[in-house]
């Protein structure tokens, strides 16, 4: 019994020892978990206004009353410098009293005729020496009036010299034959006239006018050089076509000068990516007369709007050249055709303001119109991700097909890889009527796969260049129209394989 027990015990022990032998050769606790997560990234619906949010500040989109869109590019307002006819006048002009009536020459600038000046600033001063016998002195400026009354001042001159002045603000001067008359009359108590020749002087400080009436002759007014930048065409490449049906270039002039002005271009041309320049041909080449206020409209401004389109200019050709910038210099000539030398006015705040805008109704055709956008990329933020499959669901209510391709760019600028290996993926445009109005939407699903090998390749990319190739529905065969009701819905989800 005891031998049997011993054998049984040994057998059990062998069994136990054998059972303690590990059933594996190696242990791998560091293997990374490789779950796959399916998460939504974006769900959004955009219209053209949303798409335009990323454009530079001088471009905007406006919905018209019929729901259609117009794209506007607007340049900053430019204006003429203020005109000061008396800038060259000395600070103080001293006139010795040589006689009781002095005709002070007051010549108009060359080619002009000053009929009246309304002063805003300036002083007329006088000084008379002391007299042993008290005198009554009266100074008068018959051409200086205020509320219909000519200027005159009476004072007593005795053993103390007299120094006095008058503020010209609010006074009007109407020179006669380019002269201003200054008179004095000195009398004793007995009524006897006394001459004060060489016993005093007058000072006239430099004055400024609020308004001048007269004829101002022909002169040139310069407007600063101006330009419009077209972001839309900035990244254009010459391998596609886009044509807008009714572009317009609009010049708006705001004139507060009170005499005839004519504006013309001294230079106006567009420039595109390839360096091609096209000179604008329009009525501005020869000159356009601007509206101005009559003498009874002092202080009002007159607007003149000049619309250039395909009928009166070569604007359509300019737009068709995909300009990146349109620049022009304008000059203004006064009284060009005013042979009668009719009187006008010039205020201290008279200006000519000009604003130039481009108006492009979103009606037209596009055929493989290609543009690019560069985005900064930092895939180090996706260090856990090994694979990704993007699922893009688009519900396109806009009448454009869009082909997308993206290129991953290294820090040295080299192309590492592309999003789509062969063909770019296509977002089909909404179907349209023959007139280009959309009917319904176009629903599409696209997948972009980034496998582990590709992720390894593109992980060092610093930028991604997105290439958009746009064609209007039916591959540009008919013009299409954009309006505010058209939406572009995007749902983007991703299945990512990650290492945790």
């Amino acid at each position, binding site marked *: 019994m005891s031998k049997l027990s011993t054998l049984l015990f040994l057998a059990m022990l062998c069994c136990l020892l054998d059972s*303690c032998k590990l059933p594996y050769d190696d242990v791998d606790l560091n293997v990374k978990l490789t779950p796959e997560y399916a998460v939504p*990234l974006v769900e*959004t619906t955009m219209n053209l206004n949303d798409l335009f949010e990323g454009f530079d500040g001088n471009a905007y989109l406006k919905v018209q009353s019929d729901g259609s869109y117009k794209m506007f590019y607007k340049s900053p307002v430019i204006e003429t410098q203020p005109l000061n006819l008396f800038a060259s006048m000395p600070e103080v002009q001293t006139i010795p009293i040589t006689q009781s009536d002095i005709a002070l020459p007051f010549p108009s600038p060359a080619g002009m005729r000053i009929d009246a000046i309304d002063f805003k600033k300036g002083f007329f001063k006088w000084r008379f020496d002391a007299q042993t016998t008290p005198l009554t002195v009266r100074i008068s400026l018959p051409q200086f009036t205020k509320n219909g009354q000519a200027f005159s001042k009476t004072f007593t001159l005795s053993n103390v010299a007299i120094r006095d002045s008058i503020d010209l603000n609010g006074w009007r001067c109407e020179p006669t034959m380019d002269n201003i008359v200054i008179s004095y009359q000195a009398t004793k108590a007995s009524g006897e006239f006394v001459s004060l020749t060489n016993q005093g002087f007058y000072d006239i400080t430099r004055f400024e006018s609020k308004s001048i009436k007269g004829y101002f002759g022909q002169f040139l007014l310069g407007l600063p050089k101006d330009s419009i930048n077209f972001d839309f065409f900035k990244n254009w490449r010459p391998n596609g076509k886009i044509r807008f049906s009714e572009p317009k270039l609009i010049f708006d002039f705001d004139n507060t000068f009170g005499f005839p002005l004519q504006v013309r271009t001294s230079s106006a041309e567009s420039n595109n990516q390839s360096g091609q320049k096209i000179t604008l041909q329009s009525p501005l080449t020869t000159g356009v007369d601007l509206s101005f206020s009559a003498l009874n409209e002092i202080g009002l401004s007159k607007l003149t709007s000049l619309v250039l389109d395909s009928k009166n200019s070569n604007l359509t050709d300019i737009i068709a050249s995909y300009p990146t910038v349109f620049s022009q210099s304008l000059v203004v000539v006064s009284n060009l055709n005013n042979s009668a030398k009719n009187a006008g006015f010039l205020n201290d705040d008279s200006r000519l303001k000009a604003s130039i805008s481009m108006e492009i109704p979103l009606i037209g055709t596009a055929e493989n119109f290609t543009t690019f956008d560069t985005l900064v990329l930092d895939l180090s933020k996706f260090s856990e991700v090994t694979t990704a499959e993007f699922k893009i669901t688009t519900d396109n209510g806009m009448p454009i097909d869009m082909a997308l391709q993206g290129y991953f760019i290294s820090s040295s600028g080299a192309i590492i890889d592309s999003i789509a290996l062969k063909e770019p993926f296509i977002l089909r445009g909404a179907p349209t009527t023959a007139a280009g109005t959309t009917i319904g939407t176009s629903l599409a699903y696209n997948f972009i796969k980034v496998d582990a090998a590709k992720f390894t390749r593109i992980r060092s990319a610093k930028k991604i260049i997105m290439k958009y190739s746009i064609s209007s529905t039916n591959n540009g065969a008919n013009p299409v129209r954009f309006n505010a009701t058209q939406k572009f819905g995007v749902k983007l989800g991703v299945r*990512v394989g*990650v290492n945790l």
Partner: protein
Amino acid sequence: MNKFYIRFILFSFFFSQSLMAQQEQTLNFATDLWQSNLTNPAFLPSGKNIQISLPSLYFNANSPLSIRDLIVQKNGKRVFAPFYGQWLDKLEEKNYYNGDVQMLTGAISFPISEHIQISGHQLLSSSQNYIVPRDAATLLIRGNGPFVGTAAEFGTHVSTDLRSEFGLAITYHDEFFSIGGRIKSQNGVAGIFSRGDKLRLVTDTSFYALRLTTDYDLVMFQPDQKNLVSSAFLNNGGVSADFGVKINLGKLKLSASVLDAAGSIHWKKGGTTYSTNGDVNFRGFSKIDVENTSFQRVMDTVKTALNISEYQGGTFTQNLPLRVYIGANYEVTENFRIGGLFYSETQNEETKYGAMANVTVNYLKWLRLGMTIGLRNENKANLGLHAGLTLYKTAQLFFITDNILVYGTPFATNTFNGRIGCNLLFGKNPDDKLTKKIKSSNMSKRYGTIW
């Protein structure tokens, strides 16, 4: 989720396989041990009437996975790689992990009169119960990719605790029957419990929009580090009671017991509650922002959508499982005994059943060996062993397991069970007196024979 937490949860998951337990059944047949009194307070240990139990350990495991399930073939080698997730396919829709680790720090049993024996014990135990949906494990290992177009139900039932227990038992016995009862004072030291099980994630097919429906709380109780004594014995109290009876019909002995009747622990101190309740749709961002999008940003946004609130506090009532043993033993000879046992365990309105047959041989005067074969719910039949070795009539070494085969193939099994320890025996042998009384009473004449 932070990858550390994912690994931690998974590792806890695997590690718990070797610790989780089910209530042992074989112990009910080892009636010479004081520890059998834990399964029926009417049991009096045979041998000497004073027993002191030295620290002993009880452990058990019950998991749908074995170590072997975590091994993969890689480059011609067998690699233990639990994070590969190859074991996911072996999981059922719902997977039960439950058990105990129990350290009996000490027990004493002694008579206070001819018919009355009292005993007391103290133990530390950790119970862990998880009901893990396959979807939860799949989400952790494989993400929600496999669930596109379907719903993932990942509400996991969690009930894990560390608690201390004092027990005081009294047993009345005579030659015909014995009856006993035990009152147990429970104290929760630390625990994590879930409330509600709704965690539902639906991933749609069009662009993987997520819909998360939740109604789930996790309440965590931590001991007060500054007052460990209070945390160990006083903070989260509870009471439970055991009752048992044993009828002595000569060679036939019938027994029945109910354990942890109306037992519960009220957790109220040191709690932190994490709660999520809502119906959230996450449909991505409203703008395409390539330059500011990262995987972490997306995951953070999804996490925010979970809207998990955290607050200090929270209570939880932990119902202890109600266990019932009904057994019968028959002495074929003085040294050969056979028996049978029916067992049930009820918790959270769910009842599990078990049955076991036993053969016990007093191999030598100092060695008792027993074999059991048991069935438990849908598990395969387990072969159990109980062995007692008495040295110098005073030191009683014992080892008990419900599944002896696991020791031959420990890496292929998903159940693991054992109790090991030592008792010291003193005093008289009550059996001598009892045996004489039984023999002199000529019971077979009074009651007839069973068969």
